[in-house]
């Protein structure tokens, strides 16, 4: 709790204490409310079982698995190129970012490294998928809090980013563009100029969202001091991504880890916020979209020339071994533990997806909040059902 401001810390303690007192004095029978599996606030099929006292949550528990697709098992009976097509569908809003850690793990096992141009393009597409993903979060945040307009702005401007991704990879949502040893293809002509235009549009979108939501006093009243995650608790629950940085932990795998990617080749900033409340988490995501547009522009400036594919055999057999690679995906840390026995496909794949860990803190966070705050907290934690259930 050390990173919280004094005022917020006191308010938080006072509200928790007041809630406890009310609960003892006015003990009533209560009501169990099933939020989901079909509910507009759960982004899919998450179910939250909440026991209410009036409008106050006494106890809450997320129940996931309604969309479990068994990717870890499916990966065992498929070849490496086929698994790439599968893992696209884990976090469906930022699909390209799902491929990268898996491919990097396979490359590590094979002992090859993609050529520099491929690394650059991978990083550019990775950041584009982050922009596409998080900009939709910024719009959806408005819908969760009752403002209907931002989500249309988000869909409008995300379309430009998706068009870029489609132009380069052929797929809007499921690019399947990464290959072991590089990329399927080089960028099409005109991509660089178009990307620069779109990045300016995305920064304008961020300004609009900031004017429409983040400066709004009602929005601040709804998010400030709601769902405070103290720093040490965020670490204990294994949160990652903006949820962790929102609690004041300066931790970003793009910077803190040495990977054959191009992030360390340009200057950029890791945003943190000391408050740890819903506002901090949302604010960090807004700043990260801005930062990503800058990263993309800087990478385009320094794009090296050369091949995009290393020398790899036509039929890929990954040598025996184990590898763990994780990257900072739009939702947080996403990693693959790949075990290979020298076959065409992996022997075992363990997928560590960010959202599953991020929602583990939900029962702790929801204790004592009001029903509307459930929605605020779930929206600010930002999970994607495909990423929880895999």
């Amino acid at each position: 709790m050390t990173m919280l401001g004094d005022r917020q810390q006191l308010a938080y303690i006072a509200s928790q204490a007041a809630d406890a007192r009310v609960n003892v004095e006015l003990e009533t029978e209560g009501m169990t409310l099933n939020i989901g599996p079909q509910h507009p606030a759960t982004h899919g099929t998450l179910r939250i079982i909440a026991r209410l006292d009036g409008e106050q949550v006494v106890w809450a528990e997320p129940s996931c698995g309604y969309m479990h697709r068994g990717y870890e098992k499916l990966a065992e009976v498929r070849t490496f190129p086929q698994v790439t097509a599968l893992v696209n569908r884990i976090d469906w809003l930022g699909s390209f970012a799902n491929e990268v850690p898996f491919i990097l793990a396979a490359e590590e096992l094979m002992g090859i490294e993609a050529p520099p141009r491929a690394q650059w393009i991978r990083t550019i597409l990775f950041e584009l998928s982050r922009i596409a993903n998080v900009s939709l979060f910024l719009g959806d945040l408005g819908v969760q809090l009752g403002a209907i307009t931002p989500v249309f702005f988000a869909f409008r401007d995300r379309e430009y980013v998706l068009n870029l991704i489609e132009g380069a990879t052929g797929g809007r949502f499921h690019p399947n563009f990464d290959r072991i040893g590089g990329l399927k293809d080089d960028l099409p002509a005109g991509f660089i100029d178009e990307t620069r235009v779109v990045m300016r549009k995305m920064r304008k979108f961020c300004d609009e969202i900031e004017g429409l939501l983040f400066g709004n006093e009602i929005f601040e009243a709804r998010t400030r001091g709601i769902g405070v995650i103290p720093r040490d608790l965020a670490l204990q629950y294994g949160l990652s991504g903006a949820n962790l940085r929102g609690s004041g932990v300066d931790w970003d795998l793009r910077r803190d880890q040495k990977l054959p990617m191009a992030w360390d080749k340009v200057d950029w900033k890791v945003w943190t916020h000391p408050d740890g409340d819903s506002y901090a988490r949302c604010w960090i995501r807004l700043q990260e979209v801005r930062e990503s547009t800058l990263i993309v522009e800087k990478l385009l400036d320094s794009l090296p020339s050369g091949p995009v594919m290393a020398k790899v055999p036509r039929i890929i057999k990954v040598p025996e071994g184990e590898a763990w690679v994780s990257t900072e995906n739009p939702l947080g840390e996403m990693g693959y533990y790949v075990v290979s026995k020298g076959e065409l496909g992996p022997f075992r794949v363990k997928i560590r997806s960010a959202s599953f860990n991020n929602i583990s803190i939900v029962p702790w966070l929801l204790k004592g909040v009001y029903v509307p705050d459930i929605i605020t907290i779930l929206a600010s934690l930002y999970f994607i059902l495909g990423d929880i259930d895999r």
Partner: protein
Amino acid sequence: MLGLIADVSYWTQSLLRVFGGIVAILLPAGTIVYVFLFKMMSFMQSRLGPMEAGPFGSLQLFAEVGKWLQKEDLYPERADRFIFKMAPLIVLSSTFLLVAVVPFGPDAWFTNFEAGVFYALAVSSVSVLGILIAGWASANKYSLLGGLRAAGQLIAYELPMVLAVVGVVIQAGTMNLQQIVVAQNTGSIFGWAGLGNPYILTQCVGFVIFMIAVQAELTQAPFDMPIAESELVSGYMTEYSGFRFLIFFIGEFATAGVFAFIASVLFLGGWGVPFSWFGWTSIDSIDNWMNVVGPLIMFTKMMLLVFVIMWVRFSYPRFREDQLQRFAWKSLIPLSLVNIMATSVLKVAF
């Protein structure tokens, strides 16, 4: 319907009144839905809105109504069926009762009685009953939460609304809506009668409070806690489908129109133009054409006010209901009490 037709028989009069009431409810409601909900909202979100049904989608509302009428009239198994079916009608009847006292011209009114303001504020709270029993009878937890939130909110915002109107009543010295219109249009600002004296100038605090309270009474964002589609799915309307949902839907926008009518009567000078423009001295000397122009003026003012209501609705996120109650009881009500006090002091002083 009109004071003009005082000679015809009672039943013809009544029929005309009912017909006029339906026009005065449905015409604004349809216009509001098309102009603001379909088109203005779309433009604010940089899209086009409905374009296929009729030119620029102007017949979209008829298509929607046709769709709703075809749908099955569903009710939950454990719902209290009679009450469940009755609830939307209660909500709509409140709107009809409300429009009865609104004057649209010197002789164009449905009924003109002394306690018009009092009556309007009283019947506007009938809709709370409809919403509350809709929430209760649905046998659904989300509906129950929505209905209870609606009851709490509507009752809380009834009070600032009443108190905001008190300022107008003090200044006009009457509770008759027709006389309030006349008082505004015959008044003068420091001896200059070119604009009359619309009470929005002297009662600007009251006007802002009234509009905020209207926003809350209509359960429009930022006060749409009872509906809150992202948390309570649709609050008290969750279980309604087809025709009954249509009544709720039309009722919502018709009430928006009627409240805007009342606000324009109380604060913007209603149907009238400043009497000095045409040399009228009292309500009896007004030319007959005002009975045609008056409703048009009212309609324009209504559209202006609804534009503001909808503009706010499409831009803001919603409050939490404890913040909403705090706002009503801690800010609006004290402010309106101060406003009343200031008004009465100034009334006595001048």
